[in-house]
């Protein structure tokens, strides 16, 4: 229900200018919000796409202008006040104001927390951007790009998306790469065993060494300028640089300090509302309902950031938000595009369609009612997109049809 004019001159302050925060600002303008919008970012760069950092950026194939969300003029033209290089120090919920670390105070009618997540630290290893790296921001990506010389011996801790994408880029740059992972397979938290096996094989084919089921006992300065890494299962190896990619944790401190309910993420409802009716939280920092799966969870993805940003803008404009979206993710490694739709909860059957040997296949995951819960597609856009529709529709799917490449995905999804 649109109530024209309601709250037209309310001031919205958005903390964080990643995908979620920036999209919220843009959506508010698209929906006709006329009040001031302040977009506050700790980073000194204007808002940019993060996914290219582990890929094109490390390969030196892109630049800041090409990964910017918008042209620099866009923000002024849309009356979005960008506060770059600014950290929010605290939130005063009583007077509806945030205080910046430099002492300035901005009052709000609506506060949107889009603070994102940060890389989990590896205990006992200090990230210095010289010998030890993490990969979340443009400046970190640039430090890693400079360090990735062709002769570099690289240790990547963690075989998740960041680790595998960086490995592919490092190999393309000519560096030698070892990945250590405490789980028995790569992508263990985000993909099914079939996909894990496929990607491990593919990386090995590109010369990546793996230490699976492996943990680090100690990291000490090496004989030359690098690091001597000893492993709990035995052995010591030397590396020139280390990339830590062991997951992310939500930036929820601001929310905790002002008393918002948090639990590994700022708790929000389906409308992105926190426990304070004037504060919304979106993107990586939020723990949100997953209506398709009757659960709550934290989703670290561009698609989630954009979905929640849209919902938040509708809530601020006092309009009915659009329907829920199916969560989705993608990852580019070598010549492979992995696209995942849905989440593999309550899965009973797995159906493979296509041929993994040709690097063109998909794995469908059905529950016991034969509803599609998730699909993982490798170089298989129709499977991914039809899968997304089928997950949203909740209608039962014929497993035999899914496994039959003679039946088009259009037919199956119709």
């Amino acid at each position, binding site marked *: 229900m649109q109530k024209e004019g309601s709250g037209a001159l309310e001031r919205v302050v958005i903390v964080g200018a990643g995908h979620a925060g920036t999209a919220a600002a843009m959506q508010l303008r698209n929906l006709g919000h006329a009040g001031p919008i302040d977009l506050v970012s700790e980073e000194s760069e204007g808002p940019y796409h993060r996914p290219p950092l582990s890929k094109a950026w490390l390969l030196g194939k892109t630049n800041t202008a090409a990964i910017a969300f918008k042209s620099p003029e866009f923000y002024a033209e849309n009356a979005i006040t960008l506060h770059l290089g600014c950290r929010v120090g605290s939130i005063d919920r009583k007077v509806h104001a945030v205080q910046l670390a430099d002492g300035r105070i901005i009052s709000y009618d609506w506060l949107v927390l889009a603070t994102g997540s940060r890389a989990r630290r590896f205990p006992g290893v200090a990230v210095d951007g010289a010998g030890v790296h993490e990969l979340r921001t443009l400046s970190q990506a640039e430090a890693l790009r400079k360090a990735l010389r062709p002769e570099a011996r690289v240790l990547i801790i963690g075989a998740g998306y960041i680790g595998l994408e960086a490995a592919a880029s490092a190999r393309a740059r000519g560096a030698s790469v070892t990945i250590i992972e405490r789980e028995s397979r790569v992508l263990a938290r985000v993909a099914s065993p079939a996909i894990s096996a496929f990607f491990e094989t593919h990386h090995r084919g590109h010369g990546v060494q793996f230490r699976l089921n492996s943990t680090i006992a100690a990291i000490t300065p090496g004989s030359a300028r690098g690091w001597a890494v000893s492993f709990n299962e035995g052995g010591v190896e030397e590396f020139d640089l280390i990339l830590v990619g062991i997951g992310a944790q939500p930036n929820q401190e601001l929310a905790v300090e002002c008393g918002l309910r948090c639990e590994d993420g700022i708790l929000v409802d389906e409308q992105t509302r926190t426990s304070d009716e004037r504060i919304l939280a979106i993107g990586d920092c939020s723990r949100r309902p997953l209506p398709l799966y009757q659960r709550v969870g934290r989703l670290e993805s561009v698609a989630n950031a954009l979905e929640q940003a849209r919902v938040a803008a509708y809530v601020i404009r006092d309009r009915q938000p659009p329907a829920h979206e199916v969560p989705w993710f993608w990852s580019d490694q070598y010549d492979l595009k992995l696209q995942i739709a849905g989440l593999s909860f309550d899965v009973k059957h797995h159906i493979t369609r296509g041929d993994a040997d040709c690097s063109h296949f998909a794995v469908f995951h059905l529950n016991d009612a034969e509803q599609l819960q998730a699909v993982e597609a490798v170089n298989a*856009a129709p499977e991914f997109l039809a899968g997304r529709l089928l997950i949203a529709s909740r209608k039962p799917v014929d497993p035999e049809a899914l496994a039959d490449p003679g039946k088009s995905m259009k037919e199956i999804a119709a």
Partner: protein
Amino acid sequence: MPRVTYIAVTGDRKTVDAQAGESVMLTAIKNNVSGIDADCGGACACATCHVYVDSSWVHRLPPMSDMEKGMLDFAPGIKPNSRLSCQIEVNGDLDGLIVELPRTQR
């Protein structure tokens, strides 16, 4: 410099200079052309940079990859002249290219 013209749903035309080697999507973003969302930033993963290529240009573009074909196949409002603008690289041969923007993006 090659020039690209974008026609909005409203019929408004905007002609801009493109950097050779950059995509029709990126050219739009850099020049504040609205109607191209490009949620995935040009990874051919989201189909939100959908455009309709002017009929006089359709056959002068390089062919689509399987990935682009597959992504477009399920995009809303697909027509025979649909392309993903992140997959069209602008160069001197495409000077004067005209694309129309779909209703579904803003």
